[in-house]
């Protein structure tokens, strides 16, 4: 895109956050769409590819967003439909008491200070519309009941803030009624998509994913090329040629990863790590070019689109006649797999209850949807002593672990990755308790907001996470930030470079591979990234 990138302020300047709300009430403070905060509007072809409404390209900066004539009816009708289909949505619009406990829990508010980024107020933006058009008191009492008219400026405001929430659910943890802003944002975005108001950074990957099976738009042969490249790199390091089965029928397990791992510098090493690990244990598995993405940007668009994109996982598992599925390290992919997949596509009677062929462990917790997380699988391998690990190889890393929002608050897998890290790295330090596990802070770029034009939003939203890393860097000399999410791997690196230079971001499986002693291989002199191993620095 030809549009110039907005200049990013220096860290010291960006960190001066003014939390004072404006003098005018929020309903009387018109939205100001700021460059650096919002993402570009979607392109025509991206909506067309998946038959979305109001197909056209549009620009946020333009006065005219090219909406259909009856946009207001569409929005209100859509709202009425959704409050009668989602108890969560209706309840969360009804019962908030505005106690404000959520206010300073949001990374965007902490790093930016915009009062409309307090989860409660972000929700009120939509709640006020709901009151006006769906409740009696709002219809009669209007503003005094917290209701307001849906105007074009209000719509723009809704759009602006619906794409300044990463659906991380941190606020929902602190809410006395469990009000989940992610639910509100998810459905607000659904409503906006009825009018064709998406962002290209989401719409583009969705269109790619529809056609090619992955967000990056990688065609089957390109995926194979990537694997071949990784195979060569692994052989150069280890002297072992690892195989990469593709679309192989009759394999026991289908392994699905986030497609960023084919591409992203930090992600690649994680995929290479998985290839090495699965080779070493002799797992009977296959990758798939069709099911080449576990992530789901459709989830940031509408629930229907999410379901449309994720159909390929089970369809491919069925076609390849595998017994069960292992899923790679990806955050929102696991929210979708854990909390939605089984409901959309179950009962999954064409697969078998997952049993590790290496250890015999039955994964009872996944017996219905038949998908096991790679960290669950690996932790089980380590527990049963099936991996020959040499943690001294990773002694140059001083590691801390970032819990991904979706995996921690939408699933609860907190211990497995820690168990793995402690077995493959000698130096592991936790960040402060209020910033990890279920209280973890978002990377600031989740839910499809990892574009480049909104860098200021990302850096601000990432401040709480980065600041916690800075704390352990200063205290323990942490130089490695481990995570189990591909968006994290892609976005935390620039975030670290900006706020905490000197910290490398890597996946957990990459760390495992670095400590993995493979049978019949040669002596390593470097790690996967080509950095010298401890004791080899001078050579």
């Amino acid at each position: 895109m030809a549009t110039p990138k907005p200049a990013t302020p220096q860290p010291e300047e960006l960190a001066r956050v003014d939390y004072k709300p404006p003098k005018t009430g929020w309903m009387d403070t018109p939205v100001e769409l700021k460059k650096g905060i919002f993402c570009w509007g979607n392109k025509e072809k991206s909506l067309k590819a998946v038959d979305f409404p109001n197909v056209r390209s549009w620009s946020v900066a333009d006065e005219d967003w090219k909406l259909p004539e009856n946009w207001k009816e569409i929005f209100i009708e859509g709202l009425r439909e959704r409050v009668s289909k989602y108890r969560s949505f209706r309840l969360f619009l009804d019962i908030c008491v505005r106690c404000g406990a959520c206010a300073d829990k949001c990374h965007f508010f902490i790093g930016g200070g915009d009062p409309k980024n307090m989860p409660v107020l972000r929700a009120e933006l939509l709640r006020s519309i709901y009151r006006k058009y769906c409740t009696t008191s709002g219809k009669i009492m209007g503003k005094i009941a917290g209701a307001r008219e849906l105007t074009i400026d209000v719509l723009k405001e809704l759009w602006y803030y619906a794409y300044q929430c990463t659906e991380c659910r941190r606020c929902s943890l602190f809410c006395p009624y469990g009000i989940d802003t992610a639910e509100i944002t998810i459905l607000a975005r659904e409503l906006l998509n009825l009018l064709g108001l998406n962002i290209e950074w989401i719409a583009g990957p969705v269109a790619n994913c529809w056609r090619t099976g992955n967000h990056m738009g990688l065609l089957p042969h390109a995926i194979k090329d990537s694997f071949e490249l990784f195979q060569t790199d692994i052989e150069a390091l280890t002297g072992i040629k690892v195989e990469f089965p593709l679309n192989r029928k009759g394999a026991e397990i289908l392994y699905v990863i986030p497609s960023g791992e084919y591409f992203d510098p930090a992600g690649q090493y994680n995929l290479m790590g998985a290839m090495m690990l699965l080779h070493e244990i002799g797992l009977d598995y296959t990758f798939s070019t069709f099911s080449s993405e576990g992530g789901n940007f459709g989830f940031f668009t509408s629930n229907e689109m999410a379901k449309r994109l994720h159909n390929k996982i089970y369809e491919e598992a069925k076609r390849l006649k595998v017994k069960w599925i292992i899923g790679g390290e990806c955050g929102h992919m696991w929210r979708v797999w854990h909390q939605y997949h089984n409901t959309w596509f179950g009962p999954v009677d064409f697969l078998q209850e997952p049993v590790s062929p290496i250890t015999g462990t039955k994964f009872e917790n996944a017996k219905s949807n038949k998908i096991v997380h790679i960290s669950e699988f690996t932790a089980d391998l380590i527990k049963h002593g099936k991996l020959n690990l040499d943690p001294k190889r990773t002694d140059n890393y001083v590691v801390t672990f970032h819990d991904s929002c979706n995996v921690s608050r939408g699933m609860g897998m907190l211990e497995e990755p820690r168990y793995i890290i402690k077995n493959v790295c000698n130096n592991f330090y936790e960040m402060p308790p209020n910033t990890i596990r279920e209280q973890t802070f978002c990377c600031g770029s989740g839910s499809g907001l990892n574009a480049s034009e909104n860098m200021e939003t990302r850096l601000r939203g990432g401040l709480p996470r980065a600041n916690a890393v800075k704390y352990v860097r200063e205290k323990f000399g942490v130089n490695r930030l481990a995570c189990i999410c591909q968006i994290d791997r892609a976005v935390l690196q620039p975030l670290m470079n900006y706020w905490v230079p000197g910290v490398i971001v890597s996946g957990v499986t990459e760390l495992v591979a670095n400590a993995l002693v493979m049978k019949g291989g040669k002596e390593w002199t470097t790690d996967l990234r080509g950095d010298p191993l401890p004791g080899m620095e001078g050579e």
Partner: protein
Amino acid sequence: MGLLFSFFTVIALIVIVFIGVKAANFYYLFGVIIPYAAFLTFIIGVVYRVIQWGRIPVPFRIPTTAGQEKTLPWLKDNKIDNPSTSLGVIIRMAFEVLLFRSLFRNTRTELREGPKLSYGSTKWLWLGGLAFHWTFLIILTRHLRLFFEPVPMFVKLLESLDGFFQVAAPVLYLTDLIFLGAVTFLFLRRVIIPQVRYISLAADFFPLFLIFAIGFSGVLMRYFLKTDVVGIKQITMGLITFKPVVPQGIGIIFYIHLFLVSTLFAYCPMSKLMHMAGVFLSPTRNMANNNRAVRHVNPWNYPVKVHTYGEYEEEFREFMKDAGIPVEKE
């Protein structure tokens, strides 16, 4: 604006009683009809709202997981904050409803030069909220003495515990003090904390003023103004036995108190006060996190348009064959 509007609304409510009772002598209206109507509105309204919510499907199982999930047998799962069983959910809900578990987690974020962010534990809102809700419940329960003859044992026990310190005559109830203190605290934080003030609507101030006025009129009646307790009990017993009577000579303060309580009851179903019922239905709290082990059914799940493998292979078959990737149709 919301603050002043709410304040004057409550003042207006009090004025209405003065005019209605003192000037117009509508004793029967204020002593019988309005309380009945308000109570009926409350019951019907709350039941209606709960049924309305209950009829809306829960398409997805979306608990907010606040601890380790149940996975491998050798990893300790958090059975309450991330429940995998119904019993766990019941305990989680009990903690939530009775002890405000989530609010207990509350922290206060501070950004200092550096930048340096810190998150201190802050329990004030939790404590204030807990004090407010529990004393409200106890005071409400104490009022049962007006609707039973003889007064039930547990009410008497509650009264004697509440008046444990035996200060003043009539005995000072601790809950009265705490209650008014807690309401005042909740009001002050709403006004003083800039962010909370910014998000506050009339719907937030009105119940606070109303509840404060109820508490204050109750305290006035009990401790400071002479009121005919026997007459009051005649009214309340008359209401509960559906043989309403309105004895003469009960002070205006009683009618003010009763009218404000009636207003609160009637207002409840159409307001945020419904959180007391809603919290039980909250899908992020009242569901077990066993999604991958037990399938959750969405009643409106519908088939969607998908891009099949067949279509995929059709488009990319030549590429796949050239790359040596197996295909269905050669």
